[in-house]
């Protein structure tokens, strides 16, 4: 019998986590001072491979602890507890312009975490790992219920938290890419909110969609009237175009009165008396404002500038009567959210309502501010009109800063929701 030596001990805890939970990764039983590589691999639903890796050196006891030690190379550097997740990107040789988004939220994302001897940066598949662990990451907590909805013309998926309820509710809207993405709503339900992931146009059909505010108001009412929902504790949550819709509904709907509103990478841009798709009309009018960078990525940020001074082209945020949280990446290359936020604050201050507004602005964060530990997508394939060619859209952001922004903003968004949808109304001091 061969005298094989025992492998290092790789441990990942918890082994099954929610997507916004941190994990502790450690390796024991290495030789002291040994260079090793920790790698995280994911095989997506779209059949692409995503990876992240860090280069470590074991301590005198032969241990590596990702929470305590420093990565000296790889897709992330420094002491980064969750670097193996947020720094993931498609493996070399993959298709370009990819974005990682889970479609089926009823199953977990599986990640294989491996230890390799030495500092490895490529050709992982041709090497044998020393040890490996599988970890599951879920968007849905146990007991959360998922209901497909097609009611009164509203299309979407409703997620209901476990427990007797009733619960506060959220209308959850994504942006100009269209389709039905459920994962953020599933995660919000896992935090105690009945959340409706709303589909408001099919991918590539924004230009041809005939969509009015009535559709979104009907969706909001559906949530409000649901037996599991506390009717006066329903908020609106939107990113990008979804954020633009959220702000408009919050300020100007005569039908819906949200208890609070979160807008990520969006603004009070709005073209009155026009269908929703005309948001992009300025782009058609002033094609010269669409830029491209050296890599042929399309930059849309300037098409919405300058900010109009008249109300025909923006939502009247002076009419907002509930708390509003803005989350903004200062390196947003798709939408000038930071500049619009300045204008919003100016407008709200003019009527003494600036106390309702909270702005979270993150340097070097881009447009796609997703739940924490999601990889950063600086530029991805995007189709806004199926009649036209796909482009590669520049979203912006530098990976490390963008990931920090995702982590920080998510925590603050959850605290904001808990404060306004769970606690009783407390009178706030006027500053």
């Amino acid at each position, binding site marked *: *019998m061969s*005298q*094989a030596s*025992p*492998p290092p*001990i*790789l*441990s990942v*805890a*918890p*082994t*099954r*986590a*929610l997507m916004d*939970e941190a994990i502790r990764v450690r390796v*024991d*039983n290495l030789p002291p001072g040994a260079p090793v590589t920790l790698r995280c691999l994911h095989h997506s639903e779209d059949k692409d491979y995503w990876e992240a890796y860090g280069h470590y050196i074991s301590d005198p006891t032969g241990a590596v602890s990702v929470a305590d030690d420093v990565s000296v190379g790889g897709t992330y550097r420094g002491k980064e507890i969750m670097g193996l997740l947020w720094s993931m990107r498609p493996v070399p040789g993959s298709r370009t312009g990819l974005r990682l988004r889970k479609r089926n939220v009823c199953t977990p994302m*599986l990640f294989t975490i*491996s230890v390799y001897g030495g500092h490895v940066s490529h050709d992982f598949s041709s090497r*044998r*790992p*020393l*040890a*490996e*662990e*599988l*970890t*599951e990451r*879920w968007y849905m*907590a*146990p*007991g959360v219920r998922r209901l497909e909805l097609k009611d009164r013309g509203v299309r979407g998926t409703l997620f209901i*938290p*476990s*427990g*007797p*309820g*009733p*619960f*506060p509710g959220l209308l959850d809207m994504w942006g100009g890419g269209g389709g039905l993405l459920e994962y953020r709503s599933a995660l919000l339900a*896992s*935090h*105690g909110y009945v959340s409706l992931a709303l589909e408001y146009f099919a991918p590539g059909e924004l230009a041809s969609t005939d969509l009015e505010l009535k559709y979104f108001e009907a969706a909001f009412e559906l949530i409000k009237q649901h037996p599991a929902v*506390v009717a006066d*504790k329903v908020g609106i949550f939107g990113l990008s175009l979804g954020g633009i819709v959220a702000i408009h509904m919050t300020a100007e709907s005569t039908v819906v009165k949200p208890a609070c509103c979160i807008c990520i990478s969006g603004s009070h841009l709005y073209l009155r008396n026009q269908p929703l798709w005309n948001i992009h009309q300025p782009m058609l009018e002033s094609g010269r404002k669409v830029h491209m960078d050296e890599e042929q990525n399309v930059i849309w940020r300037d098409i919405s500038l300058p900010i109009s001074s008249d109300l025909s082209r923006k939502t009247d945020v002076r009419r907002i009567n509930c708390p509003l949280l803005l989350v903004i990446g200062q390196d947003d290359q798709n939408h000038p959210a930071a500049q619009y936020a300045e204008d919003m604050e100016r407008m709200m201050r003019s009527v003494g309502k600036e106390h309702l507004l909270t702005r979270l602005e993150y340097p070097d964060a881009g447009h796609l501010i997703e739940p924490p530990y999601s990889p950063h997508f600086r530029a991805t394939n995007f189709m806004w009109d199926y009649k036209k060619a796909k482009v590669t859209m520049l979203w912006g952001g530098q990976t490390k800063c963008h990931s920090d922004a995702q982590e920080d903003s998510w925590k603050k968004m959850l605290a904001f929701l*808990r404060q306004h949808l*769970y*606690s*009783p109304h407390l009178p706030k001091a006027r500053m």
Partner: protein
Amino acid sequence: MWRQQRSVHLSVRPSRGLVDEKVAILVQSAPPGARITLCAFHRCEDRHGWEAFAHYLTDAAGSLNVSRDPSLGGTYSGVEQMGLFWSIRPVPGSHPGLRLRKKNVQTPMEFTISVYQDHFTDFTDQVPLASQTVERWYMAPGVLRTPIKDHELTATLFLPTGPGPFPAILDLWGGGGQLVEYRAALLASHGFATLALDYMTPKITVETGKMVDNTYFERAFTFLQQHPGVLAERVAMLGLSFGVCVTLKMAAYSHVVKPRCAVCISGSHVQPVDGTMADILSYFDRNGHKIQLNDENQAILRNLLLPIPTDPAFKVDVGRVQCPLLVVAGEDDQNWPAAESAQDMKEMMERAGNAHLLTVLSYPNAGHLLEPPYSPHTRASSFRSVGSREKITALWGGHCAAHSLAQEDAWKKTLDFLRHHLYS
């Protein structure tokens, strides 16, 4: 009533964990200084209800943190992060003599953690303010479970994730028999290829009526050694109760079984040395008159082996053991004289000069059934030993809080011991 005015926010993290992982329970958005009750409920595979509860007061911010705040009463008291798990017991009105043991390790145990307004102890017809489902697993993702079909063994092998090869453990339960997998699944989740072995009621005994002899264990041990996923020189034995009889006999006398280290929980070295399993069971039968019944008609079996014999024919010569030995004993064990046996083993090994191999963990007020941490404490339950024909209520002993602490500490030290001797 403040219920109608607000919703209380409950968070239990992680919502999916291994059974030996801790959870953090947080209640927020309740009124400050409010009386609340936390309750855990589990419906086991046999459909019995199990519950635990604790009374708390929220702080000035209307929050409760179970890791920080004391329970003022209930099935546990004081600051106990995992109290809602280890203090569960059958709901009032349940069948007496129940024991909680997971049979299917490929699915999780589901617990419902709930918050109720006010302090009370009866939950019938009460509606909680909030509740959350939590999954507790014996098997980590990626662990491979393989029922063993040949080699004439009744066993299940659990292999950790990864390329291996791994150190291994032969895992033995006690006199109740059956193929019990959960501890083996958990050990595999910690990096050990583990074989759960049924030796009391294996297929071969059921078919022939004959108990297995010592070659059965040698075959099981060799099977592990020869498995391609196993490091042949790093195979340990872990036994509880009757499983300790087997473990010590093999470690001391077998020419085939040479464990790298051994863990003996709640057992004894007292047995007819030259005997097979059937002989050991007869030895217990002959001492049957020493069984006592307490006021509740629960059987105390510990005296079957007391006093510890001086005749070397009736105790394993632990002076012959050549591998590190971890002995775990509950001092309130009413089923086996584990603490007295541990003491006698220590004296024997000191005389023989191999006491440096021995570590004894002896826990005051802990009973016989020292299970993985956060498992409920069973002080007495229905039991039918393979040796006897009748069903009794066996008194296992132990007092809940102390027993639970012992389980938590012993498990940690057992894992450290196994890692140290099998991985280093």
